[in-house]
Each structure stands twice: as structure tokens, then as C-alpha cells.
């Protein structure tokens, strides 16, 4: 047995080890925490690259933790979808860790740095664990791990609203995890198994569909809260906007996607694909809620003046796109939905990084004050524009291609969904182009509008706005921004690269 067979567990274990080492290292030298976190995130990223390649080459990897055979032992199940998601999570997680160095220094007290880096690795590790596990109870545990780290990270900066936001998140997400636990227990009660594949086989032998419905409904509601499906999204705007920017990135680009991934797993792996017809009981409400989320999330985003809140509401809309594609459950829509997971992760992470860079350098949070930032931070602003264009869905960026697939899948079901997708893009054009226009062509006539005393939003006084020109953020912040902006543009042209992973994943899920 050589080392390469252990890669699935190594992806997770590296980060968990790092999470334990960070406070210990912090006791000795606080400066060590950062390189340690970067190292473990980097290792985890490299492992997930290898795993993705090997899954594509050899097919599904099933790894038995500790050598215990399923259905008794915990099984890690890595198929193209989970490998794809794991790569996204570990990559953006790595960038968030890199980005943290300069950003976090001004945001949280020095003595909390070890805790911060520990939580950061824990949240990424938890997500990776949730993605790779093939065991329902283990999924619950991993979900709890990353959720609890998320509650702590939201409030770590100790701003005015952060405690309430974190508490609000905690309450709602705990309701979600309760649902998940209920369902897990319930399914165990009926089937006597916790292994997903095993459950799937045993469920199909059951006679009453009600049994499956109940398990599935509870599970999907639980994960819908985690993934902020409308109308269960209300924890999201506060938590995502008040958290420090690298954490916003993790929450907005990754955590809600992992929730969406868990919905895919529960609908298609635990209960499908043989039971797909019956699962309409779940997928139909999910599609309608997702459609409402697309429209209302965008409308809420239009009304926002705080850039991070605007981005947070836009995430509500985009999780709508992803879940709409999943709920429609056709090849084209699933391809679009899963591809959109990547595009939204790249685009939204880039936008939150840019908003963070602006906040870090100038203290500006208000959209109206973005006037003329193109002159001061040209690279950041170009990246912002590219990512925003990708999220609006304008070709040749990657956001267009996923929406195109989604739209094809949507029309096969009903013209209403097509209209929702197109209208949603139109609405998102409204608020993104408002910012883009201000950045490049905004007339700085409201000189008094620029805060003189330093911006006090969310109870924290940020650094005084700098007046000198050309103040880009430090390299640790700029490099992630550039990488993500390039990614969201290039994957619109090199679509075949992500699609080469997404297509087998969809085929597997739909049982084709």
C-alpha cells in the first residue's frame, strides 16, 4: 500500500493537523502561524489536484478510514463531483489564507492570530471532509465542524454587529444541523445503515415512499439553510458582510456551495438515481424557491449601499442559479449548475477580495464612494470589473457559459425558468454596472462624501482614507485577486477544462 492511496484522507488531515498546530505554534511565536497555515493549505491543495487527476483517470476512489470496511467503518467516497469541489475549496481556501496576512493585521487583535489561523484551517478542512465523505453521519459531523468555525470567524473581528450576526447565523444554522441530524437518525432507524451507497440500496427495497420523503425533506431543508436557499437565507447578508473579507470569501464562495453539494449528494446519491422520480417532491419546491431567490436576491442587492452586503445578496441569487440547475435535474441544467459552482466561487471570491482590498487601503465600504477608484487601484478595479462581468453573465467570461447551459436546461422544463434566469442576469447587470460606472466614470463631485474621519461602519473605525494616488493593496492581497480574475475570464474561453470534470460528474449523478 503506497502513500498515494491515502491521499483522500491526507487532504483533510493536513488541515486538521495544521489547525491543532497553529495555537501551539502561536504559544511559541505568533509569526509562525501564518506560514504554517499557508503550508498546510498548499499541501491540501496539491493533494486535491492529484486526487482529481486520479479520479479522472481511474474512476471513483473509495477509501476506508482505518481499514474498517463499510457499512461499519467510515468510507471516503471521491467521485468526479467531490474531487472537483474539493479542488475549488482547497484552492480558494489557500488564496484566502494567503490573503489574510496583511488584511487581518489591521482587523483583529494580535493575540487572536493563532485562533484565527486555526479556525481558518478548520473551516477549510471541515468543508473538504464534508465533500469527500461517503458516510451520512460523518457528513453531519463535518458540517458541524465547518459551521462552528464559521460562527466563530464571523464574530472574530469584534465589531459592533458581528456578535448579533454570528448569533443569528448560529441559531439558524443550528436549526439546519438539527434537521440533518434528525434525518440521519431517521434514516438509520429505517435502513440500519449510515453509508450513503448502502442506504441507497436499502432504501430502494423499501415499500412506502413516505419513508423516503420524510428523510429526504428533512435532509434537504437542513442543507437548504446551510446553503442559504431563499427564504432561508436571512442569516447570510449580515454574516457575510460583517465577517473579515477572507472569511466572507470562504462563506460566500465556499460554505454555501458545500451546502448545495450536500443537497446534490442527498438527492442523487442517497436517494437517487433509481428513486429520482419520487424525489420530485423535493426538487420541485427547490427549483421554485431557487427561482424566487434569483429574483429577490438580485432585487435586494440593488437596494444595498454597502458593497459587501450587495455582494452577499448577490450570493443569495447565485446559489439560486446553482440549486435551480440541480433541482431541474436534466443533463444540461446539472452541467450548468455544477459549472456555476466554480464560476461563482471564482467571481464572488474575487469581488470580496477586491472589496476587502478597498476597505483595507481606503476604508471605503459605501458603493457611492467608489467614485474614481480606478485611478487609485487600477489592477484591483480591473479585476473587480472582470469578475462582475462574469457574474452578470456576459460572454466571453465563464459566467456566461454556465448560464447558457442552465438556460438550455431550464427551457427544457419550462419557459418560466428561462425567463427567471434571463431576468436575474438583467437585474444583476443593474447593480454591478452601477458600481463599474462609478469606478471608472464617477464624477468625484461629492468631495464631502468621502469620509474625513475614517469610515465608521459596523462599529469599527477604519484607517483614514489615503489621498495619494496609486495605492494598490500589498502583494499577498493582490495576487489572489489577479489569479481569480484571470480564472473567471479564462474559463469562459477554455470551457472544456472544467467541463471535462463536470460532465462525467453529471453523468454519474444522473446514473447514465
Amino acid at each position, binding site marked *: 500500500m503506497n502513500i498515494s492511496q491515502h491521499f483522500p484522507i491526507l487532504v483533510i488531515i493536513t488541515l486538521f493537523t495544521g489547525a491543532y498546530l497553529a495555537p501551539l505554534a502561536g504559544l511559541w511565536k505568533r509569526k509562525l502561524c501564518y506560514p504554517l497555515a499557508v503550508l498546510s493549505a498548499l499541501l491540501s491543495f496539491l493533494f486535491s489536484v492529484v486526487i482529481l487527476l486520479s479520479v479522472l483517470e481511474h474512476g471513483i476512489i473509495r477509501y476506508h478510514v482505518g481499514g474498517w470496511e463499510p457499512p461499519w467503518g467510515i468510507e471516503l467516497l471521491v467521485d468526479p463531483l467531490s474531487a472537483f469541489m474539493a479542488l475549488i475549496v482547497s484552492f480558494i481556501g489557500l488564496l484566502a489564507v494567503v490573503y489574510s496576512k496583511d488584511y487581518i493585521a489591521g482587523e483583529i487583535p494580535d493575540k487572536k492570530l493563532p485562533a484565527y489561523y486555526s479556525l481558518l484551517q478548520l473551516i477549510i478542512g471541515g468543508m473538504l471532509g464534508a465533500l469527500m465523505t461517503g458516510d451520512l453521519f460523518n457528513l453531519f459531523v463535518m458540517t458541524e465542524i465547518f459551521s462552528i468555525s464559521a460562527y466563530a470567524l464571523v464574530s472574530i473581528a469584534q465589531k459592533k454587529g458581528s456578535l448579533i450576526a454570528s448569533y443569528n447565523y448560529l441559531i439558524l444554522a443550528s436549526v439546519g444541523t438539527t434537521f440533518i441530524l434528525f434525518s440521519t437518525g431517521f434514516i438509520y432507524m429505517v435502513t440500519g445503515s449510515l453509508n450513503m451507497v448502502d442506504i441507497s440500496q436499502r432504501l430502494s427495497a423499501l415499500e412506502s415512499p413516505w419513508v423516503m420523503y420524510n428523510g429526504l425533506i428533512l435532509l434537504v431543508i437542513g442543507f437548504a439553510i446551510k446553503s442559504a436557499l431563499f427564504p432561508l437565507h436571512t442569516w447570510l447578508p449580515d454574516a457575510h458582510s460583517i465577517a473579515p473579507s477572507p472569511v466572507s470569501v470562504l462563506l460566500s464562495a465556499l460554505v454555501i456551495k458545500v451546502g448545495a453539494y450536500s443537497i446534490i449528494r442527498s438527492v442523487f446519491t442517497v436517494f437517487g438515481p433509481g428513486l429520482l422520480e419520487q424525489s420530485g417532491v423535493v426538487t420541485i419546491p427547490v427549483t421554485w424557491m431557487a427561482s424566487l431567490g434569483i429574483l429577490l436576491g438580485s432585487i435586494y442587492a440593488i437596494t444595498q449601499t454597502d458593497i459587501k452586503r450587495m455582494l452577499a445578496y448577490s450570493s443569495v441569487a447565485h446559489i439560486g442559479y446553482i440549486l435551480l440547475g440541480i433541482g431541474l435535474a436534466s443533463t444540461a441544467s446539472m452541467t450548468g449548475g455544477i459549472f456555476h459552482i466554480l464560476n461563482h466561487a471564482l467571481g464572488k471570491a474575487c469581488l470580496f477580495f477586491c472589496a476587502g482590498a478597498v476597505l483595507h487601503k481606503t476604508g471605503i465600504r459605501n458603493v457611492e464612494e467608489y467614485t474614481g477608484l480606478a485611478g487609485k487601484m487600477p489592477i484591483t478595479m480591473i479585476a473587480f470589473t472582470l469578475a462582475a462581468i462574469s457574474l452578470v453573465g456576459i460572454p466571453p467570461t465563464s459566467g456566461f457559459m454556465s448560464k447558457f447551459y442552465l438556460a438550455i436546461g431550464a427551457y427544457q422544463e419550462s419557459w418560466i425558468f428561462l425567463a427567471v434566469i*434571463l431576468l436575474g442576469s*438583467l437585474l444583476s447587470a443593474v447593480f454591478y454596472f452601477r458600481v463599474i460606472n462609478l469606478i471608472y466614470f464617477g464624477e468625484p463631485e461629492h468631495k464631502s462624501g468621502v469620509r474625513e474621519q475614517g469610515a465608521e461602519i459596523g462599529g469599527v473605525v477604519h484607517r483614514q482614507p489615503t489621498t495619494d494616488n496609486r495605492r494598490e493593496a500589498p502583494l499577498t492581497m493582490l495576487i489572489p485577486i489577479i489569479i481569480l480574475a484571470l480564472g473567471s475570464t479564462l474559463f469562459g474561453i477554455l470551457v472544456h477544462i472544467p467541463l471535462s470534470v463536470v460532465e462525467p460528474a453529471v453523468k454519474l449523478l444522473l446514473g447514465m
Partner: protein
Amino acid sequence: MIEHVLPVPPAALFIVGALLIPLLKGQLRKIFLLFIPIVAFVNLLYLPQGTYWTYHFVGFDLIFGRVDSTSLPFGYIFVIMAFLGALYAIHVKESSEHIAAFILVGASLGAVFAGDYLSLYLFLAIMTVSSAFLVFSRRRKSATDAGFRYLIFHFFGGSLLLAGIILYYISTGNLYFGLLEGNELYLYLILIGFLVKAAVPPFHTWLTDAYPEGTATGSVFLSAFTTKTGVYLLVRAFPGTEILIWLGAIMAVYGVVYAVIENDGRKLLAYSIISQVGYMVAAAGLGTQMAINGAIAHALCHILYKALLFMGPGAVLQVTGREKLTELGGLFKAMPVTFWLFMVGGVSISGVPFFNGFVSKTMIIASAGLQGEAVVYVLLLLASVGTFLHTCLKLPYYMFFATDRGIKAEEPPRNMLMSMGLTAFLCLFIGIYPAILYNILPYPVDFVPYTTEKVVEKIALLSFTLLGFWLLKDKIAGQPTISLDTDWFYRKAGPAFMWFCRNPASVFASWKDLAYAKICFAFILLFRHNSPELLLTAEKRVIQSRERRQLASRQPAPLDSLTIGFSIFMFTFIVALFLLLLVFGKLVP
């Protein structure tokens, strides 16, 4: 050696060129700006006819080079126009404007040579964004708003087009962009998408809204590309569609009527674009070989003289900073060269013999006559009279003569004059030697513009108009008001939409507060427990709800979603209880 490099896709040449602009400074950039269109023109000459540059793109075939006698003429004129526009704008220091303009040119070329819907949609979307950036470049509030309306209007049209494309793809299984016939839904969606591009009423208001708001140099680019791309798309996909004849004829008259009463010089010209594009749309609708020839020929001529016409008021705006006719006058003494060059555009658009408008416009009118469309024939003739009235007489009269308001002025920068001169020369050259135009048209031309009958008819018509204008010139002076057009709807709809976005949300939030208060009261009643905390909370909620209402009625209230969060939590809790009951109710037999 040149054969090995060329041809390259014309769109790529301009778009890559645009991205290089910010790297260059000073004299070098000026040379570069003129060099790109020249290279592009040579490139076009090397472009063989046929379909190539086909890429297999995740299951779709992208065709970037469908070069035939329909697309090639548009390619030539777009590149020529890019040269003239770049020369006109060469003194502009800001690179953002040059970049937007070159990307617009590149995307238009891409759209014209695109052979499939996906790449077509790609280029149309790039055109929309780059045009909006040209409008934004004016950097003032009204321009920002107009640019924004432009953007949303075109995204709306683009959405319909995309919906049409998807329906087309699902029903046919390919994305080939060609002639569309039949009675399918996608046909209408695509048609509306194209009509928005061609500014056919009632989808025209983006044009009159945005073009006058562009910068002096940007509007020259704007005027040339978007609507003509729309015309190309109509000619390509919907030749001979009957409804286009009527839309076009009505459009031609509609534009003229508004142009006659318009006060802003460049807005007048914008309405006159609508009128002129009406001819082309009508010709596309007629669909005969001669009409299609006419549509393309007129598009080519129109680009030249309309650019020249936009350059005139652009130069005036550059020099004086004014654009309203009621604020201008008496500029002839200071700007005689500008005036004469502008007049070349004026007589061209009116279709005076020996100018290019004549050789193309008569072609369309004649083909309407040959088809036996008498009403259309009369409408188009009428529109041409109106055009002469507003563009060739009214506009220059109030701008260069009329009341002398003592405005300080001088001739515009030399590059502007050179560009105008070149354009004027081309207008005249095509008018005198129409064979050069006729040779590049898709069908063989057996049309002779200069017959005694046509020339005499035209001159008689125009002389009477001139006489009428001289008698009535005080009656049609521009009024400093805004004419009511269909854009009223969305000018009102925009704020209404924002109201919709804000208010229901806050009303909803205030309901939630009230509901929460009611629950608290209910607890107090139910348990007969007079808890002061609970009472206090309930009262606080009632007050909060009232405040929210008041705020919503006065101004957009910032949303505080924490309260909504809590109520949703309650909702989830109730759902959970309900589901549990359901689960155990069903489990226990």
C-alpha cells in the same frame, strides 16, 4: 511575406489593438490609432470569401469568419469608419475612450462576420458594453443615466435574443446563424432582439437617449456601428419579412417628425438616424435583390454622411461647449470650414444628386415603387423631404446663422477638420462615381441613378422644401423642451422599479415586526403572565414597525434584516414542528 501573416480575424485586430492602447503614449499612440484601421483594411482585402475560422467549442461550432458579399461591404465601411473616427478623436488624451471605441469597432466586425449565434451573441454583448462606456465617458450625471438606460435596454434586447437562440438550439440542434423562416417562437424572439439593435420604434429610445450624451468624439463612433449591425442582421436573417416594410416606412417618417421639432443638435441627428435606418429596414423587408442592394448601399453611405453630420456639432461642442440649438447661432463667421463640410453631409443625407445619399436612397425608393408598394413609396419620399428640412436646413441655419449670440469660437483642431474633409470627400466621390459602391454589393446592379427623371424629381422636391423652410423658418425653431417619446415609459419605469425594490421590502419588514409584537402579546394573554420584558419587546417592535412605514413612505429605508432573520427563524421552527408531526404521524400506522 504579408500573405503568411494575413488574413487574421478583423475583430481580433481591433480588440487586441484596443488592449495595447494604454501601453502607448504621445505621438506613438496617435500613429498606432491610425495604423490599426489601415492594417485592418489591408487585411480585409486579403480576406477570401467563404466560411472559415471555425472552432469546435464544447459541442458548439463557432464560426468567426463567414465572409461573403453581404458581410464584406459592412466590413469595409466599418474599417473605413474606424479610421475616420480615430482621426477625428486623435487629440483625445484619455485612453479609456479610445479603448471603448476600438473594442466597439472590433465587436461590430466580429458580429458582422459571425456565422453562428453564440459568437454573434458574444460580439453583440461586447458592443453593448463598449458603447455604454463611450457614453459614460462624458462623465456627467445625465450621460451616466443615459448610458445606464442604454445598457439595460440592450441587455433586455440581448436577453430576448439569447432566449431565442436557446429555443432555436433546442428545436434545431445547431447554432448556425442564417436565413430564418417559419412561424416558430424563436423567430420572433430573435427578430425583436435584432429590432432593438436596429432601433426600430418602439425599441428606439435608447438611441435618441444615449447618442446625444456621448462625448463629441464618441458619438461619431456610436452613430456608425450599432444600428448598422442591426440592419446587417435583419438583412441576413429576415429578408422579405413583410412586417419590416411597414415598420421601416413608419420609422422613416417617425424619425423625421421628431427630428423637425428637436432642439438639441445631436439629438436631432439621432432621430434622423432612426429615419434613415427606416429606409434600410423597409428595404430589408422588401427583400428583392435590388432592395437588399439598396439596404446595404444605403447603410454604407449613411455611415459616412451621418458620421460627417455628427462631426459638425461635435466640433461645435468641442469649441463652444454648447449643444442646444437655442443656445447657438452665428457661428459661420468663426467656423466657415466646419460649416461647408457639415453641409456636404447635409446635402448627402437629403439625397441631392452627385452626393452619396442620392445613389443609395433612390435605389430603395425605386425598389419600393417596383414592388407596387405605393403607400411605402410615398412615405419614404415624404421622409426624404423632411430629412432635407431638418438636417440640411434647420440644423445648420440655427447653428451657424440665425441670431448671432456672440459666442467665441474658432475652427476645431486640425485633425477634426482633416477627418471631416476626408469623409466629405468620400461622400462626394461615391456620389459622382457610384460604380465603386455598386461593385461590392451582393447582387449585380442594373440600376442607373442618374436619369433625368429622377434628378429632376429630386431637385423639384427639394426646391419646394427650401422655399417652404424660408417662409416658415421662425415657426420650426427649436424649443428648449423635451419632446415626449416612448422613452417616457421607462424613464418613469426606472424610478418606479427602484421604488418597488425598496418599499415592499420595508413594508414586509414592518409586517414582520408587527407579527412579532402580536406573538409577544399573545404569549402575555395566553399565560396570564405580565412579563415586563415581553411587554417592552412587543412595544419596541410596534414602534419600529411604525417608523419603518414612515421611512418607506418618505425615502428608501435601509433594510435591517436582523429582525427578518428572527422571524424566519420562528417560521423555520414552526415548519420543523409541523414536519415532525408529519413524520411521526405517518410512521405510526
